[in-house]
């Protein structure tokens, strides 16, 4: 397939501090002991999309990510790593690497997407409609764990306020309206309603940050609209808005390679009017607008904005908050364990002390050791961890090389790599940044612990 994939992997996301750090950029954040980027790359590989550009924010992060990819996916994917400055937005990042784009269509996917929806399906939909842009929509995930929700409470409240309003045509193939995060009332253009007749407004769908663009359209928009920063908030709404009157294609030659709609040969008034009066069915509602009433050679065009709606049973979550991190970790070891790709190596069984129980939905990394009478429930423990006796780990994520002293109780928390928990530490709904040392006997609740930045 003549598809180029751009994976927007991000860098040091502020939403995820203290989980991410200079040493551990967001793409490498382990989800069930496996970097989050792996999930996307694995799905792409499965769909036979092997020509990739991975865009990472920041040079250092790019080096780390590049090293990991070349170590893991060597000979399996053709990957280029591109480093872009931080905070230039998704559209900015694409603009920066625009000259690398050569294929007819570009698939843009966010590196933090954990999903079992095949990207190939999106690409196929895009090709089938010869669309300018195709976006993937999925059901809004149920956020927050069932019991401990306090750490995510804030995120949750925020999420409720921001939902997408998506307008679809009756066949649910075309995207007619998109708005994000509305404070005001939704404003829907009557023009598009005239064209399509009826539009379904959905507020239970989410833009999953996976898009297929026609390269020429994408580059044109990025060139012309140099203030656009975000794909989701600027580029996509712009394309949707202008789909009946495509400016993106106006200053191209009509015979260009990317004739987005059926080009209509000259027609005289009479024939055109009579067609409308006869209510002749056009292939789609775009058809009527792509024709030119005065019969002169047409430069007006329309472009199609399509959607691929993932089935409601599929899994599709973005790792863009700590809450989402907890949710995804819970899900991939639980309900959505089919996501775990085969290269998620499960090492030789860890050493367990006597009377230590490991419940279902748990992962233990290679080389980890646990003392006596420990309890692990619905948690993930990374590689080479040393866990003392009488330790309880519930609903938590423990990354690599963590040392946990005797008698610690850890609930709903994230413990990053190289953390040392001394004896009898009690943590509830906390995040402990990499390399942090928690002193013996301390108790924390819903706090974020991290080393001071040097």
């Amino acid at each position: 397939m003549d598809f180029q994939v751009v994976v927007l992997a991000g860098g040091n996301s502020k939403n995820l501090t203290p989980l991410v750090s200079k040493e551990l950029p967001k793409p490498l954040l382990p989800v069930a002991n496996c970097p989050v980027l792996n999930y996307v790359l694995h799905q792409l590989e499965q769909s036979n999309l092997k020509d990739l550009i991975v865009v990472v924010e920041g040079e250092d992060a790019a080096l780390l990510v590049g090293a990991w990819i070349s170590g893991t996916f060597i000979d399996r994917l053709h990957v280029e790593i591109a480093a872009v400055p931080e905070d230039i937005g998704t559209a900015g990042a694409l603009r920066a690497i625009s000259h690398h784009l050569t294929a007819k269509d570009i698939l843009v996917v966010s590196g933090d997407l954990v999903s079992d929806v095949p990207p190939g399906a999106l690409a196929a939909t895009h090709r089938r409609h010869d669309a300018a842009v195709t976006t993937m929509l999925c059901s809004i995930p149920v956020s927050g764990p069932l019991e401990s929700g306090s750490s995510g409470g804030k995120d949750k409240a925020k999420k409720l306020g921001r939902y997408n309003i998506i307008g679809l045509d009756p066949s649910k193939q075309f995207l007619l309206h998109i708005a994000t995060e509305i404070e005001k009332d939704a404003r829907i253009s009557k023009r598009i309603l005239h064209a399509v007749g009826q539009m379904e407004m959905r507020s239970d769908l989410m833009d999953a940050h996976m898009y297929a663009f026609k390269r020429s359209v994408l580059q044109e928009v990025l060139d012309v609209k140099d203030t656009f920063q975000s794909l989701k908030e600027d580029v996509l709404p712009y394309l949707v808005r202008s789909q009946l009157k495509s400016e993106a294609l106006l200053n191209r030659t009509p015979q260009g390679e990317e004739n987005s709609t059926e080009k209509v040969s000259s027609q005289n008034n009479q024939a055109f009017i009579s067609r409308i009066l006869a209510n002749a069915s056009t292939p789609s509602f775009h058809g009527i607008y792509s024709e030119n009433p005065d019969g002169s050679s047409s430069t007006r065009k329309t472009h199609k904005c399509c959607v691929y709606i993932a089935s409601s049973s599929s899994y599709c979550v973005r790792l863009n908050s700590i809450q989402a991190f907890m949710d995804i970790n819970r899900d991939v070891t639980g309900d959505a364990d089919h996501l775990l790709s085969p290269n998620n190596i499960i090492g030789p069984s860890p050493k367990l002390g006597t009377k230590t129980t490991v419940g279902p939905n748990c992962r233990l990394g290679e080389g980890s050791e646990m003392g006596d009478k420990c309890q692990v429930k619905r948690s993930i423990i990374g590689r080479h961890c040393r866990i003392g006796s009488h330790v309880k780990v519930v609903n938590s994520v423990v990354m690599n090389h963590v040392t946990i002293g005797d008698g610690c109780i850890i609930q709903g928390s994230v413990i990053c790599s190289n953390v040392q928990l001394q004896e009898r530490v009690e943590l509830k709904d906390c995040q402990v940044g990499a390399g942090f040392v928690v002193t013996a006997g301390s108790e924390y609740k819903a706090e974020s612990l991290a080393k001071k930045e040097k």
Partner: protein
Amino acid sequence: MGAQKKGATARVSEDPEELARHPLQAILLADSFTTKFRPITLERPKVLLPLVNIPMINYTLAWLESAGVEEVFVFCCAHSKQVIDYLESSEWSSQPNFSVTTIESHNSISAGDALRLIYERNVIHGDFVLISGDTVSNMSLTQALQEHKDRRKKDANAIMTMVVKQSKPSPITQQSRLGTDELFMAINPVTKQLLYYEDKAEYSKGFISLDKTLIADNPSVILHNDKQDCYIDICSQEVLSLFTDNFDYQHLRRHFVKGLLVDDIMGYKIFTHEIHSSYAARIDNFRSYDTISKDIIQRWTYPFVPDVLCGSSAIKVERQGTYRASDVTLSRSAQFGSFTFIGQGTKIGNDTKISHSVIGERCTIGSNVTIEGSYIWNNVTIEDGCQLRNAIVCDGVILKSGAVLQPGVILSFKVVVGQQFVVPAYSKVSLLQQPTQQDSDEELEYADSTSGTGELRSDKLNGDIAPDLSETASELGTGGVGYIWTVFEGAYDEEWRHSVAPIPTDKLVKLMLDKDEDEELLTQDGNVISASRELKTDSDGNGSEDDGNEDSRDDYVSFEKEVEATFLRAVHENVKVDLAVLEVNALRLSYNMASVDCGGAIFYSMMKLAVESPHNSASELHRNAADIVTTWQKLLKSFLHDIDEEIEVILKFEEMCLESAKEFAALFPQILHLLYDKEILQEDAILRWADEKEGADESDKVFLKRSEKFIQWLREAEEEEDDEDE
């Protein structure tokens, strides 16, 4: 029909939970409270107008009867006497199991008034069907009624079910095939609840605003532009009391439906019922009259078609949808096109061609007449060689030989068109003069205030005006009788929209091109809005700010014009200064301007007047200006309260000298001095202005330099004063 009816009534009575069973009732509004069918409705109520030779109300009543309604209340207002007389003499007064009761009102001006009156009568005891007397339908009410009742059981707030039907408006004219304006509705696809309703009455913007809570509450909402409102409503009793509670509700849709949709306190809900295979439409205007007539002839409304409805008069349906009464006298050489109706006792001459038309009873049509797409009612005489295209010709009209009706002509009762006369397109001709007072908001059908029937009135009027007309050779050619109604300004462009004639091609092309331009504007607008809204960066915020400035600029220009007009009027009519001040103040408030703007605008008007009064030299101009300033200084002064406002006047003057009134450029210092002398400008203001200008560009300082001497003098005077003070 009978079988259907039995089924429906049986179902109602079998409803187990409805212990106290009420007969299904209907309210039929025999008045549309609009003026769209004028001038015809000046003489006969709309519901009695023939639709394929049968009065409209018969279609409605026949449908109600077949749909299982047992009691109908016919509300009559305009020409109520005619409606009552008609119903009493018709078969409807003596039907078993179907009672028709009339309710008469003389002062109702809207559907709201009608429903309030019916509420007072206390005749409705349960769910009822609300319909107007111009509705043609063959839908079965059973399912809609059942849905309504089921919803009521679950939710007592579900008080109304509206019937809708698929009908996509034309993409060019944005109106449906019935000639009604496009309609936007939002409907919940699962519950079918109506969430939003917008007809063209509030068409202004290119966007629809849906309330955010509406979207938050309904995960899926379908916005429809492809539905037609059939104006058949199944209502619960509460609807009547709601009209009484909200005494300002007039229009069923515009007030009542929208009122309920926005009011979330009472929580009343409206639902929709979509019909797919059956027919329902309301005759709203001449275009829908045309469309529905054709639908009837093409038998979409079966069983409500002419040959079934008047079974006795033996109308035969022939090939290609031609209907012919039994005793028609046809010349052998007359040609009948398809879809044509010819009523009883009509005579048609040689070589006459008729197609797609309805011709009523006892008409006499001569030879070589061409009739296309027209509706000719009863007792019409058309002499030889006439041509009619897409016209409506009412009872008793006489077309003298060779008369031509261009598309869209309406000839009201007993009009006579003279020989060879060509009635221009879209003309409305009546024996009655056009009512002179035209209130655009008027909702009232021409109410028959004198209790005499329209028929009598027109006779009387006919007698009165006929001599007049013949004297003046008439607007309708020699021997013609009738007035051609003038179309009100602005409405002319829209006349074709609701006419019986098809929309001319050139209009369509023009509309298409206009629309393109609109779209361009809209797209641009959209961009500006979204850029400032979505990017949230300062650099892009400018776009909207510029827009804001632009707007206020425009406002100011029109304000200035108004002030100028006011001032000129004051000058020419010698209005007292106090009154002029009041007027300008009123303008200021209505345009939301500051008094600074008033000062500037008045000064501008004064100087403009001075320039425009005749003068030969600069000194004369100066004198003109001096005169005006002297006369009106009080007016100007009353808007100059502080120094800033005075500076504004100087700036304004400067601007004028540069742009609109360059003649003043040479006189700048003199006028400034004049204003100082008249104590309009204080020396502080002038000096402040001078100081401000000191730092400006060289080009800006032209006038400052010119008035240097004067300012110098002012400064010295000030210093002297200061000295004296010391």
